[in-house]
């Protein structure tokens, strides 16, 4: 006779999937790979994204670009702030995931999650200030009104940091989307799970489907397809410095084909206050001339 009251409860585990166009598909390839904690213990089978998944994600990002870049800056700011609000409400979950993924202490993991929330807030505030800091009225020597405004460049591919699974991820995604770009981001290969869970936050926080698309898989396999994709306008190679010494250079060379804007490979200390470089990397400057006279 079993005693249901004393039997240990078996946890319900989550299936970690991709996040493309606002939906959560498995990889079209049907593949997955084992994700372990920092000690090598099994955590989950994450989707192993393929070339086709990467291309689907770019298509979704392109489709979302018109609406997202056309939204008012005020609206985009509020949406990013909403992400912070929802992430704040799930701090415990993310602290546990980051801890498992990165091997941090409980306190360190909580600090990382807090910083990630604050980073969304910081970038949310930039939405309606970028044009004020980066735009200008230019006093040209003639009877013209001349002004320059920043505009988003388009679809941005991001190879997320390998070591910092949440804070690093947020630190490379938020600066791309705040100005109206849409992104396809390849999560950390070894610790992809916090990014996948973050996509569940994104899906419920007013970020339109397709604005942020999250892939999990092998960096060396997927990144080249993003770097060479002709409908991608910019690429952040941040997390591409890991797998092989040559990969980052090869990706940058592939990106040259359609003159993608490139942010060079290299991990940073994501706990430091961010600079403007990542926002500026994905902005075009448009200058308008108009005659003045009766």
């Amino acid at each position, binding site marked *: 006779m079993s005693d249901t009251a004393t039997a240990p409860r078996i946890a319900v585990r989550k299936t970690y999937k991709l996040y493309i166009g606002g939906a959560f598909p498995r990889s079209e390839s049907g593949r997955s790979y084992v994700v372990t904690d920092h000690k090598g213990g099994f955590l989950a089978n994450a989707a192993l994204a393929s070339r086709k998944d990467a291309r689907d994600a770019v298509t979704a990002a392109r489709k979302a670009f018109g609406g997202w870049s056309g939204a008012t800056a005020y609206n985009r700011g509020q949406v990013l*702030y909403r992400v912070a609000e929802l992430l704040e409400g799930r701090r415990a979950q993310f602290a546990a995931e980051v801890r498992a993924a990165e091997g941090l202490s409980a306190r360190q993991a909580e600090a990382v999650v807090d910083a990630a929330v604050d980073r969304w807030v910081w970038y949310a*505030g930039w939405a*309606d*200030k970028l044009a004020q800091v980066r735009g200008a009225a230019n006093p040209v020597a003639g009877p013209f009104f001349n002004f320059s405004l920043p505009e988003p460049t388009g679809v941005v591919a991001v190879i997320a940091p390998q070591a910092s699974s949440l804070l690093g991820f947020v630190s490379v995604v938020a600066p791309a989307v705040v100005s109206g770009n849409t992104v396809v981001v390849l999560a950390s290969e070894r610790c992809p799970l916090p990014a996948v869970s973050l996509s569940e936050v994104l899906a419920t926080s007013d970020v339109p489907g397709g604005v942020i698309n999250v892939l999990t898989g092998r960096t060396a396999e997927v990144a080249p397809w993003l770097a060479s994709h002709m409908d991608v306008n910019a690429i952040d190679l941040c997390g591409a410095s890991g797998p092989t010494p040559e990969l980052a250079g090869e990706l940058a060379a592939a990106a040259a084909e359609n003159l993608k804007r490139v942010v060079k490979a290299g991990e940073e200390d994501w706990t430091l206050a961010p600079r*403007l470089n990542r926002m500026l990397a994905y902005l075009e400057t448009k200058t308008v001339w*108009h005659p*003045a*006279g*009766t």
Partner: protein
Amino acid sequence: MPKFEYAPAPESRAIVSLRESYGLFIDGEFGPGVDGRAFKTISPATEEVLAEVTEAGPADVDRAVTAARKAYEHTWSQLPGRERAKYLFRIARIVQERARELAVLESLDNGKPIRESRDVDIPLVAAHFFYHAGWADKLEYAGYGPAPRPLGVAGQVIPWNFPLLMLAWKIAPALACGNTVVLKPAETTPLTALTFAEICQQADLPPGVVNIVTGAGETGRALVEHPGIDKVAFTGSTEVGREIARACASSRKKVTLELGGKAANIVFEDAPVEQAIEGIVNGIFFNQGHVCCAGSRLLVQESVYPEVIASLQRRLATLRLGDPLDKNTDVGAINSAAQLAKIRELSEVGEAEGAQRWSPPCELPVKGFWFPPTVFTGVSQVHRIAREEIFGPVLSVLTFRTPAEALEKANNSPYGLSAGVWTEKGSLILWMAARLRAGVVWANTFNKFDPTSPFGGYKESGYGREGGRHGLEAYLDV
């Protein structure tokens, strides 16, 4: 064709729970004034008493300034910008959450149509806090040096025409830049400011960062002249603004003033007429003309004058005047008996000086303070109604032949707050914009406001800007 009547469509008052009396909001709590004096605030649409409000005396103002100083030194200036930002974001969100309640309360206390308080005032209030929240941790990028410092305690006095919006224009940038504030709302419209005090409590804003003292001119004077404040921000009449400038002349206080206006709204012959008519109507009849930047002088190019006047009169006949809480109301109540008397007086002067007065057929409610939309034609530049701010639903129409003449007339004013230009020719818009001596120029639109867009006047319309990157300067030691 059958004539359709509007059925009444009043917004429910039930969403607002008024207290019988309100204390002063000092150091995070409501409390009585030292000398126990109070005054009543009424609904200008019905003259119904809404609530009793405490009149702050000099001792109360002193308590408020002391609380603000303490909060500045021990709490607010110690907080990193990133944490100050979170309080402002919270306030923005609570304003959004309580938007309908605030809109109804604003319309009750001020007399403005619910359509405007609901669709313009309150959304802009939330937007203003949201925008400035984002600046709190980005001040080093605002163009004032690597680490701009706040000023300290700000004394802020605001008018009755956009009560909560003017509060937002004052408090949001002040707090974002790291200052603490003592704010005095207008004596006829204190209720949304007092509700805002409750919002500060809901947001857990540290005590003393925002203090609200209610009262009339004497309370304002006590605040402005208090030696413990570092900054004076005033929106109101040019006459009072001049007094404040004088009162602060030999102090170290930084002063910004947003004062009166007599904006020219200039319609060229190639302007899209229907669009221009909407802009003219919005320019002067928005908020019953209680707008410092109202387009109160209409300058029409002679060649289109008959057409513009005929269209304007046709359009004005469709405006609905009445219950501010009715969702179909276009023109609400005049805010106070005193303001109504001033509008009446200047309108009578307009007739006496020889201008022709016209109003659409318009039934005025028996109780409350009301004035019909009014247009004066045949106005010349020497008439008082062309020179003085009426601050009511009264439009003075003048004519011109050339852009140079339009410019000459538009700039012929001691004021310089705003101007409007209506033409399909972009180069003319920019030529005019470059020469108009006004802080805001609206082209083919009018009375547009946004937290990112600096607002403020030239000449006797005051100095300093509110909103945008430029508005931060008023609250930073630069």
